[in-house]
């Protein structure tokens, strides 16, 4: 957590947000737009057409050099050394006890000169922690080991990143890039040329990834051209019904999609199996921090697991509300909101295994009064699948 009083970090689009009526809030040490018009409007526009969000606060760490693949394999729970060109994987960083330090995306690309590199996208709230963690595991003698050098840097401030999400995202972006987006698979990306003078001949990275439950893309461009490219994307998006979206809608969209948020569903006190993220843990092969602990935890029964809850009534639960079976506490919510798509309150939370089956009727203590809640299968919302996504 940032101590208050420290000046907030600004993305390259901060002035644009303010000029366009965004309400700015502090988020993980950054000044970010929570909403431009209304969270519900921005949320529904993303589901119906396209939402465009500035996510330049997300931490980006870049790794290259002959030792980069093995170094990352020995840092992350999931094998990223075997990534093919332009592939992206969701992975965890765990501590020695198997607790989750962060959840990250790692992509493998070639630059314009054919040089390979990795980009690891980390949560804004964890960037400093992960930078320190990488430093601690990459002392100079390792980083400079002959033939296995690893060069890395935190490029967060150098690159802006936009999330362009929704059924019209592909149509919006295709004219701007020199790769065929329709044939780009989910969790793939590419280094691209941006076909507009606003990019000043600079390239970017585009990936078919997102945090909304929609088809969509994330586009990274250099900070110096960020505003120009953003304005082009906005202009091209207008006839398609695209709107700028703030971190308010980003949260309601990810919640409907059942996606965890670090600091809520994930923490150093949670292990991957409880969180339903066992699939990200490759416990044979490369040894990474926490692997032995995870091998043990995998076999141990655990008490509670992450579930989705739909509430009766209209009164939303938030994070950290007790979950009850009758009068007995059987868990705690981690996030909760009103779902604009389902038009009812939804929540995520950890519930004791004997009450975690979908269909189980429970209650959530919302500020002293119980609201009826039913365990449901995740995600709360699933888009109708198109051809490729």
């Amino acid at each position: 957590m940032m101590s208050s009083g420290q000046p907030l970090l600004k993305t390259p689009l901060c002035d644009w947000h303010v000029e366009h009526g965004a309400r700015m809030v502090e988020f993980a040490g950054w000044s970010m737009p929570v909403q431009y018009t209304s969270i519900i409007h921005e949320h529904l526009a993303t589901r119906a057409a396209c939402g465009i969000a500035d996510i330049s606060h997300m931490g980006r760490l870049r790794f290259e050099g002959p030792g980069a693949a093995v170094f990352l394999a020995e840092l992350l729970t999931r094998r990223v050394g075997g990534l093919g060109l332009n592939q992206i994987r969701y992975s965890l960083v765990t501590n020695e006890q198997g607790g989750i330090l962060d959840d990250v995306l790692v992509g493998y690309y070639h630059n314009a000169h054919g040089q390979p590199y990795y980009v690891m996208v980390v949560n804004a709230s964890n960037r400093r922690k992960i930078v320190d963690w990488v430093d601690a595991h990459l002392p100079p003698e390792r980083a400079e080991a002959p033939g296995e050098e690893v060069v890395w840097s935190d490029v967060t401030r150098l690159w802006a990143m936009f999330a362009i999400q929704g059924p019209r995202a592909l149509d919006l972006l295709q004219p701007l890039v020199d790769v065929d987006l329709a044939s780009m698979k989910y969790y793939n990306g590419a280094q691209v040329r941006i076909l507009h003078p606003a990019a000043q001949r600079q390239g970017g990275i585009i990936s078919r990834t997102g945090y909304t439950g929609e088809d969509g893309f994330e586009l990274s461009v250099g900070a110096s051209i960020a505003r120009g490219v953003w304005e082009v994307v906005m202009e091209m998006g207008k006839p398609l019904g695209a709107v700028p979206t703030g971190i308010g809608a980003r949260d309601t969209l990810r919640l409907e999609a059942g996606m965890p948020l670090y600091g809520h569903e994930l923490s150093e006190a949670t292990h991957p199996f409880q969180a339903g993220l066992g699939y990200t843990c490759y416990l044979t092969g490369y040894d990474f921090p926490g692997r032995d602990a995870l091998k043990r935890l995998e076999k141990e029964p655990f008490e509670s697991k992450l579930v989705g809850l739909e509430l009766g009534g209209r009164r939303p639960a938030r994070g950290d509300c007790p979950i009850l079976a009758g009068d007995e506490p059987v868990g705690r919510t981690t996030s909760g909101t009103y779902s604009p798509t389902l038009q009812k309150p939804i929540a995520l939370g950890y519930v004791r295994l004997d009450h975690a089956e979908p269909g189980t009727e429970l209650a959530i203590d919302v500020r002293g009064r119980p609201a009826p809640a039913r365990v449901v299968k995740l995600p709360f919302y699933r888009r109708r699948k198109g051809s490729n996504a």
Partner: protein
Amino acid sequence: MTPEQLLYAKTHEWVHVETDPSGAKIATVGLSAFALEVLTDLVYIELPEVGRQVEAGASFGEIESVKAVSDLFSPVDGEIVEVNPDAADGLDRLADDPYGAGWLVKIKITDESGLSELLDYAAYRKQCEEEMEEQG
């Protein structure tokens, strides 16, 4: 009612005081346009039962947006005598007429001394402008 004719609590409730035929002072209370604009995306409101005693500065209900829950604070001491029956189902319409159809409760005032603590329109507007500054 026009906003200029009303009194305001620092916590963004507006108040309009009338004398009923029995001579009792009745305060009609709602949320200011500024507050509704800041809240946006309202999804739930909890209003008290008729007959409940309320106290100036204490919570008498809550209003909830997609993002957060906020308390509603009573601007006066008294007893709830009427609750707007349309408020709960018309949350998205509160902001259309915050000083008319968007009223929330009527309170029979038991102690008028609290009224002098309330802000007039000019003072309230100034407070809102200061809050905007802090935000921006």
